[in-house]
């Protein structure tokens, strides 16, 4: 493992540990670890195992998935401004979730909302594949993503617009900001297989992404199967985004900012950036979720708001630096 990989792994481990010991219930660090491993069946075991552990696992999983998907998307499109939301799946799955909230499906069953979000994502993927599947190009992929995002956004607004009472609308708006509060192991079991499958698919792209540094023509002549690669990219990203959005709502900026920060540290090689961004994404989302709990513990600060608040200025700084370097 490279030095960067080691540093990032240690950072993720440290933040994961911190996520287990920080929270509104005042349980000391040592007591938290004891409660997690020992499990005396008391209140602190319940808090650490049922509240903090799923939350920490989800933050690490979703962060890693979104970071990797962002790096893959940027590498494939050879554009540092690409992001996993680009193919429209986050919009489509948010629409599914919003419909579940609106119809009361989310209240009837704990996993009603995630399932509705996954259904939305599936419809979104089928649309993207139909528009930019086997014989598309990177441009049709971007356009298809924009069209699906716009359509899903319009339908989400329609649901909000027709919402019969302000409380439902309020709930929808809060959900859309993205959060990991009050998630259970059931949520982990929904997100885990999806994000794992998605990252495994994306991880097969490392060679192809490196080759694409030379452009599509040269890469294809070197033996790269571009059409197959695009299919894997769409399916892998969609699976990651669907799994994330279904349990945590829309969390922006991880997939955009993390690859951007780490790119200079891996010598700009798109293949290596994939792994670095997975670790970096996990670290950033764990840190953001810690910030949510530490900064305003009483006010239910939303995770998506924090990632955007941290991500946007960071991104502005990066753009400024890029411009100064004339790159």
């Amino acid at each position, binding site marked *: 493992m490279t030095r960067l990989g080691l540093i990032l792994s240690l950072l993720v481990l440290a933040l994961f540990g911190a996520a287990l010991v920080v929270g509104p219930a005042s349980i000391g660090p040592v007591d938290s670890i004891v409660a997690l491993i020992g499990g005396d069946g008391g209140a602190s075991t319940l808090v650490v195992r049922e509240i903090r552990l799923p939350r920490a696992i989800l933050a690490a999983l979703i962060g890693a998935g979104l970071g990797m998907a962002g790096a893959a998307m940027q590498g494939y499109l050879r554009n540092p401004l690409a992001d996993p939301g680009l193919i429209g799946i986050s919009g489509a799955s948010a629409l599914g979730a919003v419909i579940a909230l609106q119809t009361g499906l989310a209240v009837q069953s704990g996993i009603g909302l995630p399932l509705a979000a996954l259904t939305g994502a599936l419809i979104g993927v089928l649309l993207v594949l139909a528009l930019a599947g086997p014989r598309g190009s990177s441009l049709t992929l971007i356009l298809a993503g924009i069209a699906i995002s716009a359509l899903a956004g319009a339908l989400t607004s329609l649901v909000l617009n027709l919402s019969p009472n302000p409380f439902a609308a309020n709930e929808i708006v809060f959900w859309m900001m993205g959060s990991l509060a009050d998630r259970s192991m059931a949520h982990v079991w929904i997100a885990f297989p999806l994000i794992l499958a998605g990252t495994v698919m994306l991880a*097969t792209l490392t060679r192809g992404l490196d080759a694409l*540094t*030379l452009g599509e023509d040269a890469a294809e*002549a*070197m*033996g*790269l199967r571009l059409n197959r690669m695009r299919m894997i990219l769409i399916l892998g990203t969609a699976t990651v985004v669907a799994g994330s959005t279904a349990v945590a709502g829309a969390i922006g900026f991880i997939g955009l900012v993390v690859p951007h920060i780490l790119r200079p540290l891996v010598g*700009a090689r798109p293949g290596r950036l994939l792994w670095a961004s997975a670790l970096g994404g996990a670290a950033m989302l764990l840190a953001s979720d810690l910030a949510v709990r530490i900064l305003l513990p009483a006010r239910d600060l939303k995770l998506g708001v924090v990632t955007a608040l941290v991500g946007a200025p960071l991104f502005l700084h990066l753009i400024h630096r890029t411009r100064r370097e004339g*790159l």
Partner: protein
Amino acid sequence: MTVLSLSGFGVTLRGRPILRDIAFDIGGGELVGLIGPNGAGKTTLMRAALGLIGSVGHSSLAALAPAQRGRAVAWLPQAREIAWPVDVQTVVSLGRMPHMSTGQRMTGADRDAVDSALEQMGLTELRQRTATRLSGGEQARVLIARTLAQETPLLMADEPIAGLDPAHQISTMETFAELARKGRSVFVSLHDLGLAVRHCTRLIVIDRGGVVADGPPRALLSPDLIRKTFGITAWFQDTPEGLVFQPLEVAT
């Protein structure tokens, strides 16, 4: 040994026939220049022969499986793209990809190929530099070095020397000629007829969708062909320094 074989080969784009009835073979040790006016279909011919765009008829390269093709031919497209600010040796190392299986590290042979490619293109000093910060001509040389590192029996390049300074134009053509002397083949499209007649062992002239002439430069060039195909008059003469070709003026 034939490294590229085309027969009954043609390309139709958007219902318009661009090329038809193309047939030629390229053997080992040849430096073949593909010449013709703008729009004659030089790039189309090369991309179709590689199987990157659809075609009719037979092309020995397009018939290969993608993974085999990367070991049979190295392709340098006209658009010089280096998408990320990676260093020079990383770009050149990408040429070794077709020889490595997934997840495999570079072996000593791979590193030797990269070193020798860097040296042939005069890039050894620049190997740690960020490729995207180099000048256009230097980037072109980096990309040529990538195709050299690929160590394929055939190297195909679309206008590889456009935008290089005269010294690097000549040294690049000499690098190609040296490859040909060692038994590998090079197929390049060129606009500089002077360099084409001087360095190529064979020229293929295409115009209006077909091959109009094919053979060694000395036997091939006639004032008539030059006027008909390129619409110019030219002076050329066999000198002790080799064949010299100088375009003069647009034919009326």
